[in-house]
Structures are given as C-alpha cells and as structure tokens.
C-alpha cells in the first residue's frame, strides 16, 4: 500500500509557535504600557492565531476535505450573530 511514513507537518515547530505566542500575549498583557484599545485587539488577534494553528495543524483541518471544513465552521457565524445582537442591547 502506501509508504509506511506519511509526511506529517512539523508538529514540534507548531508547539514552539504556540509557546512563543503565549509568551508574547503575557508580555503584552502585563509588561507593556499600551492603552487598552490596543491591548485587547492584540490579545484577541494572538488568541485567534493560536486557535487557528491548533485547528489547522493539530486537528489537521488544513488537510481534510473542504466539506468537513465547512461543517466545522457552520456554528461560528451563529455564535457571532448571537453575541453581537445581545450586545447591542446596551446601546439603548
């Protein structure tokens, strides 16, 4: 059948990325003196980045059929709609 060793992404490298990003996050949150308007988007950005690394490589979504990817992201717009609508409450 196929060769015994399939090509795997370099998982250890991803792990290093994740560790570094976490360190940066902690740095941004506690060591920097940036205003909150910058810190929060930056932290969210790093969190999403890390989440993507996990989903795409560790959960190998990147290598799955496209349809599975679609299935996996169906709930996300629903979640966003919910949170945004309920938040708009406080604009009254």
């Amino acid at each position, binding site marked *: 059948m196929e060769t015994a060793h399939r090509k795997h992404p370099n998982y250890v490298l991803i792990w290093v990325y994740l560790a570094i990003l976490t360190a940066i996050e902690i740095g941004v949150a506690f060591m920097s003196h940036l205003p909150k308007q910058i810190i929060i988007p930056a932290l969210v950005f790093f969190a999403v980045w890390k989440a993507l690394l996990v989903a795409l490589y560790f959960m190998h979504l990147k290598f799955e059929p496209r349809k599975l990817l679609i*299935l996996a992201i169906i709930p996300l717009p629903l979640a966003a709609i919910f949170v945004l609508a309920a938040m708009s409450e406080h604009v009254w």
Partner: protein
Amino acid sequence: MAHATATVDMMHPPAPAERGLDVYNNKLGMWVFLASEVMFFTALIGSYIILRFGAPGPWAPPAKVLNVPVTAFNTFLLICSSVTMVKAYAAVADGETHFLRFRPFSGGLKFWMLATIIGGAMFVGVQAYEYTHLVHHGFLPSGAREGSEVAELVASGVVPAATIGLYGSTFYTMTGFHGFHVTCGVISMTYLYVTKALRGKYSRHDYRGVEVIGLYWHFVDLVWIILFTIVYLI
C-alpha cells in the same frame, strides 16, 4: 487503492450513494459533536462577553484576583499535552505502536498517549490547586467572601465591588466547564489506552480511536486558548 491488500483499512469512509464528507463515521461523528460543543461554549463565553460589556462598572484586573503565573504554567502544560497528542496520532498513523525505541530514538503511540494523559491530569490537578487557593482567599462563584482577602481588596477599591459577583460567576462557570471537559478527556483517553492501545488494537489500518479522541483533545485545548486570553489576560 488499486493495490489489493488483505487488510481492511478502517480509516476509509463507508461508501454512501454519493460522496459524503469523505471521512469515516467516527471522525464525522466527532466533528459533528464538536460543532455542538462550540455552541455550548458560545452560551458560556457569549454570556461572559455580554455581561462584561454591559457591566455596571469596570472589571477587576485579573492579576489582582487570580494567580496568573500558575495558570500561565498550566496553559503551557496543556499546549504540551496537545503536541504529545498529535505525536501519538502521527506515530500510529505511521504504524509505530511501540512505547520507546532507542536506536534510533523514537517515541511510539504508547509513549505519546501516556504523556498526553499525564499532561491532562496535571492540568486538572493544577486547576484544582488554583481553585482551592482562590476559594481560600475568598474568591467565590458568588463574589467575595466576607472578611476574606478578596473582600479587603474590594473594600480598598482595588477590585470593583460592582462587578466582583459577575467576575466570580463567569470565571468559575467557564473555567469549571473547561476543566470538566479536560477531565472527561483524561478519563476516556485512559480507557482507550488501557483497553486498546496497550492491547495492540491500534494499527496503521485502524487508529480511529486515537484520531477521534485527539480531535476532542485539541478542541478542548483550543477552548482554553480562548479562555486564557479573555479571562486571565484581558
């Protein structure tokens, strides 16, 4: 696929009338389940965002109430257990179901899975330690316990009184349910380890259990990445 082989390769999807999602049942089932988990955490995390957005005052700075260094270490633990999990998957996919081999040095399924179980169990342990300490200091799901350290912080204005109740509610509910998920993961993985991995039931042609529990594991890790950022850092 043209090669005829005697082994049934369970990693292939069943043959529906038309292409399904091109993945086998258990994996599809797990992904579908994870979609529902996303909605479950949407309820919890969404409520947190909504409550915090509409809160009657500023939120307490995390570092004043929580023990961030311990949790940072815990985060690191969980990331490590994620990489060991994926190493276990890669090992079994390559047919390496041994524990350790020394020349050349390589870890097999049994090694990496055990490492993952230990990592997960340690995470839960550290979280239990964190909780006991927080409760000891007077930080409760309902807010600050009277006469406690946290209550003093509230009294001195370091921690806003108006939102400490919400802080406790959302903190314990979100991290608690995450911890519950990790615990479930550790238990199921131990079960698979003992009944399947150790007994040599996994092979290059059938490692569905490893892949499926791996998906769950990484998902729980992913949730933690979000939680750590929004609960402990922001």
